[in-house]
């Protein structure tokens, strides 16, 4: 099992409310991603679940049991840190074996478990090395190995990929997703990268200033953002958010339209503008268009286009793809 429930959880740091009050249900086996800009409280929330920080008020339940006051080690959770947090003076073998040794497991069982984990993570040849002699990706694998040997109820990942280069990040992302498929254990993953969130999560929790803005599957958030913040945060390139007269036309304070939904024409359309920057990626073309009376609008057009800086274009947002928000920024 590995169901985690947060009830009215708050956290204050010297009088400042970092988490003003969070209620959240995480089902057994779910891959949940906490996403939000830096300083939104996502890491704090993870550390509260881990027990590395004490909650100011509220309850944390793990499998229905109140774990609010339990020490980190007694919550049967395993954590993978951003800095890997490997023990620099121990070999890879000893790093992975450490939690088992702390649990007082017999040496022979430890050996079997460590070797099995090393095989899963392709670390068999590195068991005698020290963390300092490994690459970033290998260190991350050791950290994951140390987490899986404990067979925890849930894994907590705190921005585990942000110290890796872009190519390795994509690989590790896949490996973690595959790990989740094979272990079927609850995973809570913190990231500021919405692409990681979209690609890995069963459920995304979007956080902003310590509050949950929206909880839902990646596509739910993409299709029906609850407010302007989620609309702007989920999706790449960012959703175009437009205020003023063009929005009033749709009876809204703000309207939003995703770059990939905008229709492009070189002859006619709703919004006329001049191409500022055209980014040709081959698979897509990103056009940053200076639209009269609106400002910059980004359009993402599939395939290769013969459009360049200074060209005059017309953009049309399909009415069914327009997101409408009221004065509070809430979706209408």
């Amino acid at each position, binding site marked *: 099992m590995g169901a985690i429930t947060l009830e009215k959880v708050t956290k204050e740091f010297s009088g400042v409310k970092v988490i003003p009050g969070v209620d959240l249900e995480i089902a057994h086996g779910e891959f949940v991603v906490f996403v939000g800009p830096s300083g939104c409280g996502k890491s704090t929330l993870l550390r509260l679940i881990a027990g590395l920080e004490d909650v100011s008020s509220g309850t944390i339940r793990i499998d229905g049991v109140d774990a609010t006051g339990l020490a*980190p*080690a007694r919550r049967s959770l395993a954590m993978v*840190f951003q800095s890997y*947090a490997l*023990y620099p003076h121990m070999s890879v073998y000893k790093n992975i074996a450490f939690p088992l040794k702390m649990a007082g497991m017999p040496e022979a069982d430890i050996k079997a478990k460590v070797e099995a984990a090393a095989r899963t993570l392709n670390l068999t040849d590195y068991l005698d090395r020290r963390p300092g002699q490994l690459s970033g990706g290998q260190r991350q694998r050791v950290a994951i190995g*140390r987490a899986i040997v404990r067979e925890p109820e849930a894994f907590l990942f705190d921005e585990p990929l942000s110290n890796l280069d872009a190519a390795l990040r994509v690989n590790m992302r896949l490996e973690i997703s595959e790990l989740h498929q094979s272990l079927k254990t609850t995973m809570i993953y913190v990231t500021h990268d919405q692409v990681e969130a979209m690609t890995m999560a069963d459920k995304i929790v979007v956080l902003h200033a310590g509050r949950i803005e929206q909880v839902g599957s990646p596509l739910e958030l993409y299709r029906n953002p609850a407010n302007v913040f989620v609309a702007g945060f989920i999706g790449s390139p960012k959703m175009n958010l437009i205020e003023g007269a063009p929005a009033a036309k749709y009876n809204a304070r703000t309207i939003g339209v995703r770059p990939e939904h905008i229709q492009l024409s070189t002859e006619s359309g709703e919004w006329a503008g001049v191409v500022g920057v055209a980014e040709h990626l081959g698979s897509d073309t990103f056009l940053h268009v200076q639209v009269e009376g609106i400002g910059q609008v980004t359009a993402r057009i599939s395939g290769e286009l013969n459009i360049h800086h200074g060209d005059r274009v017309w953009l049309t947002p399909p009415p069914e793809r327009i997101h409408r928000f009221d004065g509070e920024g809430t979706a209408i």
Partner: protein
Amino acid sequence: MAREATRNRKIAFTAFAWLVGLTLFFPILWTILTSFKTEGEAIATPPSLLFFEWSLENYFEVQRRSNYLRHAMNSVVISLGSTGLGLLVAIPAAWAMAFSPGKHTKDILMWMLSTKMLPAVGVLMPIYLICQSLGLLDSRIALVAVLMMMNLPIIVWMLYTYFKEIPGEILEAARMDGASLGKEIVYVLTPMAVPGIASTLLLNIILAWNEAFWTLNLTSSQAAPLTAFIASYSSPEGLFWAKLSAASTLAIAPILVMGWFSQKQLVRGLTFGAVK
């Protein structure tokens, strides 16, 4: 062209560094050389640098007149004792300040450092009187205690900077992995902190060994360490340069040898925190 300019600059810098180094080392070299001269040669003008009659006579004379070994033993006891006691107090203090800092941790650290800004002579009277009324004048205990307190701010600061370098996440990982506080200290913290504790230990032994103000003021014969032994050659019967030099050489030799062998640790300890 550019490469040549860099090369010339390197040569100039190297020459300058050697010049500074030798200038600093010269008094020590001169002391060592003088210790092998006769009293007459020691004060001769112009002085002879290397071409004199080398003799060990001064060393025998110094040993005959005063008991070198007793003073050396005092130095060992005082420097090891004050450093050991200092570490015993400073490790938990630095630990607490590095890993669970409070609102005023920075202020406490600054306050401790500020005590080093007070000239030692400013507290000579009270400390002398306290030692006198406790009957601790000319005792090793008094020196161990006083030197421990004098060096404590430096020990705490060094250890604090060192502990600060141990990433908190590693300790948290240990906690997540099920280590109790005791196991966390034994298996994770101590092995990682040993180099820092070692270099702090070495530096403080050196500081305590060379300390002259308190050792001269609080001892006379029984507890007098090597610093007092040197000083005894510059007084009543006039100046005996050669014997004074021999005494000095004998006094600095042990610490010089220790410093030489632990150079790596010392440099690491002193520059720790400066470069990541």
